[in-house]
């Protein structure tokens, strides 16, 4: 299948690993992805004027019009903004977690399992709330970990806030909130959001914080994925 792709700003820099992972996984699953030509920033959470914020994503949808119908957007903030801007439901704005469904795993070649390893899936906020833009399957990470023989822990941490949004406003807020998640979780933290990744990794010390894509690539047998 051919998808339009909106990586968003952080995936070109601090979350480049997530970008690479998504591209690799989609290619392995036989999908093609093409970037929306000359896309611009979605505005993330930084704009108080709702119209101004929505206009950023409307511009992106304008650039996708005629090229793509289904647009894959890995960054939760971009995903929410783009989905909200598509007021007429003209496009299918899709989060990768909704692509990794039953049929995806039927075609996945498994090279390794997760036996003996403990993971805490951490969704953060925007993938789960508000419900209009939330992902369809809210237990997809747990299901994947269990499917491949891993142990799931840290149920109490999965939908808490890491405070990533405040990291460059007041670091102490992020530190306090991230430490609560680190305390309530066990084993490797599996995240999807670039901001959660940054916040948790900043304060995680020796604990591992990985992207869900790293986990999938590890299962698929990619070297050095975890």
């Amino acid at each position, binding site marked *: 299948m051919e998808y339009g792709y909106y990586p968003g*700003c*952080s995936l*070109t*820099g*601090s979350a*480049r*690993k997530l970008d690479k992972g998504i591209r690799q996984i989609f290619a392995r699953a036989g999908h093609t992805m093409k970037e929306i030509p*000359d*896309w*611009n*920033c979605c*505005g*993330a*959470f*930084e*704009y*108080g*004027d*709702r*119209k101004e914020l929505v206009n*950023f994503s409307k*511009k992106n949808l304008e650039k996708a019009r005629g090229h793509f119908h289904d647009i894959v957007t890995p960054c939760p903030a971009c995903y929410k903004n783009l989905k909200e801007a598509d007021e007429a439901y003209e496009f299918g704005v899709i989060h990768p977690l909704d692509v990794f469904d039953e049929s995806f795993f039927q075609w996945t070649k498994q090279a390794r399992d997760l036996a003996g390893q403990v993971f805490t899936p951490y969704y953060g*906020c*925007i993938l*789960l*709330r*508000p*419900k209009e833009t939330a992902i369809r399957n809210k237990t997809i990470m747990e299901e994947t970990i269990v499917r491949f023989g891993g142990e799931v822990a840290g149920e109490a941490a999965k*939908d*808490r*806030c890491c*405070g*990533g*949004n*405040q990291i*460059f*406003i*007041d*670091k102490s*807020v992020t530190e*306090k*909130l991230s430490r*609560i998640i680190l305390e309530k979780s066990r084993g490797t933290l599996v995240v999807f959001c670039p901001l959660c*990744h*940054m916040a948790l*990794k*900043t304060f995680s010390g020796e604990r591992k914080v990985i992207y869900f894509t790293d986990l999938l690539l590890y299962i698929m047998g990619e070297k050095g994925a975890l």
Partner: protein
Amino acid sequence: MPQIDHAIELTDYRRQDFSVCLGCKICASVCTVNDITGNTNPQDMLQRIFLGKDISADEPLVRSCTGCYRCTGACPWEIRIPDVIRALRHELNVESPFEKAFKGSVSLFGRVYEPYVLMKAVPFLIRGGYMQHVTRWMEYMGFHLPHRVKRT
């Protein structure tokens, strides 16, 4: 009061929309800001906005709302309180140097070019004790030259 009205105009709400609030305070019971300071009550703020009272930029909720939408998820009316607070922050000029640099990058490049944002915010990063984390960030931060950032 005009300032609050201005802020509300930036959202999808009208002031009278908040009259539906049942006063159940479930938003307060789930609010992330309570993990930091305690005594935070978004319902009280909505009520004050409805009554046209002033909101101060120093209030913990205005200062530290993380935009987690836990309140929205719990609210019987699904009121998007983080959207209201973001509009208040805009109207009350609560903006960190990093946020300014972020917006500067977007208007200059059309995108957030991280090295530009970090350079612009260096004094703030030094003052705020962020430099100790730089080596950690360097482990996974990709770097690319600005020529790959397109102007729109």
